[in-house]
């Protein structure tokens, strides 16, 4: 009983200073501030990574503005409305994914885009949000901890978009979507025993998975295991990225002075590998501070999840928080050479639009959950 009481107490306490304009606009100031700091850091480092190209900064700034706006719009939608739409969004997303498979545009050898005439749309982005929403919706009505039957069905819901997106092929997004769904399952309280069994089975099945992987995916894993094997091809990214990061040292070479990362040698220096540019110019201290901001955003999001009043909100908030952090881990892990190269951008910093909008819409949902709480005592 102690924990809920504590929660109620905090909630009501929080409510006392709630009549501010910010709260009426459904903005969570802590999150907003941290996200803004991250975006500004992103623009600063992009200026260096993009060879001081102002047009690049303008484009990215515009995208950020659009994404922040989308976040604020999303924050106005109360969680119970989201819950209502969750299964339909998921169903719609799956149908769009199927249509991509059949009618999609090919871009850089992968079929991810759906051409809607006016603009091109990546249904996998929709599913980044719709999948955890669907699982949260499905489990919110069950009694927690959840029975095995429901866990099994929820796993199938997770598997459908994961497999469809892996087929596109987009391994990075597919991993993120699977982990967002699994995070909901975990928060819903699946037993540790089950987690151990499934983990063990997955380890045993890994060699079988190898057969289903595309040639380029296999190549990436092999390259990850031994980058020196292919120094001019796939291993090139990792070697150059490590040199850039390592040469940055404790304090870094200073903004705009990272010669290594800015040489022609580091490919994708303003997109997936932008962390290497940051690490070379700002060193270990800068990296630690940057990672700390990400950690703070994560902790704030988990705090929002714990504070949330209904099961749906809570599961969804927790999942969004974890996915955000996994995003970071996969990107930095890949750039520093502890994970294979799977093509995941650094959240809010890498150059590029689609995934940034999705990410901030996710934070809009978190803000909505935080600011739409009602006093239970009232």
């Amino acid at each position: 009983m102690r924990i809920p009481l504590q929660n109620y107490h905090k909630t009501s306490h929080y409510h006392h200073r709630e009549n501010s304009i910010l709260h009426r606009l459904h903005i969570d100031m802590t999150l907003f501030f941290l996200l803004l700091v991250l975006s500004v850091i992103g623009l600063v480092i992009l200026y260096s990574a993009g060879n001081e190209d102002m047009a690049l900064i303008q484009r990215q700034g515009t995208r950020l503005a659009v994404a922040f706006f989308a976040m604020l719009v999303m924050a106005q939608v109360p969680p119970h409305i989201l819950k209502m739409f969750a299964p339909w969004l998921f169903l719609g997303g799956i149908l769009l994914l199927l249509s991509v498979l059949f009618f999609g545009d090919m871009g850089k050898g992968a079929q991810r885009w759906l051409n809607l005439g006016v603009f091109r749309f990546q249904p996998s982005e929709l599913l980044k949000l719709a999948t955890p929403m669907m699982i949260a919706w499905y489990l919110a009505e069950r009694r927690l901890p959840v029975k095995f039957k429901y866990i099994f069905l929820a796993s199938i819901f997770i598997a459908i978009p994961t497999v469809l997106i892996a087929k596109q092929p987009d391994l990075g997004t597919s991993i993120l979507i699977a982990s967002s769904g699994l995070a909901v399952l975990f928060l819903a309280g699946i037993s540790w025993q089950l987690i151990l069994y499934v983990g063990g089975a997955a380890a045993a099945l890994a060699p079988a998975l190898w057969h289903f992987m595309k040639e380029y995916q296999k190549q990436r894993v092999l390259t990850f295991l031994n980058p020196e094997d292919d120094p001019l091809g796939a291993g090139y990214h990792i070697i150059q990225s490590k040199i850039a990061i390592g040469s940055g040292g404790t304090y870094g070479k200073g903004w705009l002075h990272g010669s290594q990362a800015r040489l022609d040698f580091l490919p994708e220096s303003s997109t997936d590998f932008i962390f290497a540019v940051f690490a070379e110019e700002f060193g270990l201290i800068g990296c630690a501070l940057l990672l700390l901001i990400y950690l703070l955003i994560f902790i704030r999001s988990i705090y929002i999840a714990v504070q949330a009043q209904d099961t749906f909100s809570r599961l969804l908030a927790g999942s969004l928080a974890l996915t955000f952090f996994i995003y970071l881990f996969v990107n930095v892990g890949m750039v520093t050479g502890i994970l294979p190269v799977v093509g995941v951008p650094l959240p809010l910093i890498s150059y590029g639009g689609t995934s940034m909008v999705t990410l901030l819409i996710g934070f809009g949902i978190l803000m909505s959950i935080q600011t739409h709480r009602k006093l239970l005592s009232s």
Partner: protein
Amino acid sequence: MKLHFDLKSDAQENRLFFSRSVTLIIFALVLFVTLIARLVFLQIQTHEKFSHLAQNNRVNLSAIAPVRGMIFDTQGQVLAENNPSYSLELIPEQIKDLDLTLTELSKILPISEKDITAFKKRKGSNKRFVSTPLRNRLSESEVAIFAANRHLFPGVDIQAHPLRHYPFADISAHLVGYVGAINDKELSQIDPVNYRGTRVIGKTGIEKTYEKTLHGSVGYQQTENTAQGRPIKVISHTAPISGESLTLNIDMRLQKTAYDALGDFNGSVVAIDTQTGAVRVLVSKPGFNTNLFARGIDQKSYTSLQTSSRRPLFNRALQGLYPPGSTLKPFFALAGLDYKATTRHQQVFCPGYYQLPNQKHKYRDWKKTGHGHVSLHEAIEQSCDVFFYALAHDLEINRMHHFLSKFGFGQKTGIDLMGEKSGLLPSKDWKKRARNQVWYPGETLIAGIGQGFNLTTPLQLAQATVLMANKGHAYKPTVVSHSGSQVSTASQWPAIQLGNPNDWDHIIKAMSSVVNGRRGTARKIAEGAPYKIAGKTGTAQVFGIKQDEEYDEETVLEHLKDHALFVAFAPIKKPQLAVAVIVENGSHGGSVAAPIARAVFDQYIQLTP
């Protein structure tokens, strides 16, 4: 809803969720510490090593571009080669005072204002730490002068690049094509690893079609460089694999003869070995200096080439679409015999015009007074239009289309060069599909003399002539004889079978009369030839003449004069070479186009033992 929520959200659930959230935070902290530990390893523990690599003695992994394969003609004459070219290049980020350096450089080497402006422009668009050329094509002595003073100029160096050179630039312009700097579109289509270090790519002709063969595979070397970026030691080296050289079927001696024989006219000459399908001549005139493109053409020269009324950049041999005119008559005649729409002996009276039953419109013959009574043989020899109007009327357009498409009209020949046009062989279906209009009987007549909708390329005419010479058998035309040691295999053309194979001989006899007959339209070129030529002249209207108008050669503007055509093969007994000639605004097939073919045959016979 609220009620349900309150009932379910009990203490146990809250506790479970709280503990799971704490677990997640611990999990995230573990990941956080993992990343920090990794960064500590890279940036503190192994910092020395990476710093060493990056800064003091930077290990530079550089690609070595493969040497592009050369191109030879069938006699081993060089058509494309690589000459060394030296350029003076600067890395702006490694130069303390750029303006001072530029001034000092211009004291020892001739550097113009234009060079400096171009350099600054290039520098702006380049990435940082990229070597940017200041002057290209330095002479040997200029290279020596700079080498002696090199220590005074950190960040400045001489770079050697191979420069593509075409000894027969104009004559082989469309055939060989040229290379140029890789553009964005091409960049997205090539393997970026294999082209790392390569600066140029084939843009047209053989250079483009055989890009993959000519390019080869990239090599790379790891060098230890000084802080200025100069290599001081090679750590490892993987040699590139040079592109394969190509030997063409083209004989430059024939090619040059054909090019020169065209004189000041625009036009095209294609000659194909009837036995093998080997393309011996592929001329499009005017040519242009492909070396300008290989060096990097300036805007002014490019614009003048592009806007020239003679259209030098246009590859007439493969892409020029001309009404074939009377050169189609032998093929229609063969169709007439095969479909039994006419016979060898049937006579048609030619009063100088033809009228469809119950119609007033007069379809004229080129000879106003008419040819009188003509047989099929005479109709080909004298190129009587009225005979072929009548034949076309009996044949019908769809049968004409069906028969002539066996000769490759209206389709690509499948030559091993990119950009070939398929021409147009009209039919009722085509008109319905392309224009959504019905076919008029009058259009059949016009098609019967090779005018109207008919459009052919010089290459198609040459290939059709090969099929005529070989009585229905041929190979697809091929330009490349072998690449490296690998011989290209010629693929067979689908054989044409006639109901009565003797019909071939009848038409060939008539084509022989065109050159060797008393009243043949190309009889002039028979004079003094030690071998026998069979051919057919043609004239293609550039613009339509109205019913009551006269075409007056004297007054008509040069660019509106008729195109002159001639197709031929020789020797008749054992055919070896088929030639198609198109002379734009040449007016007369017999007197202008035919002598060009004769010149090519003469030299071919002389050169062939």
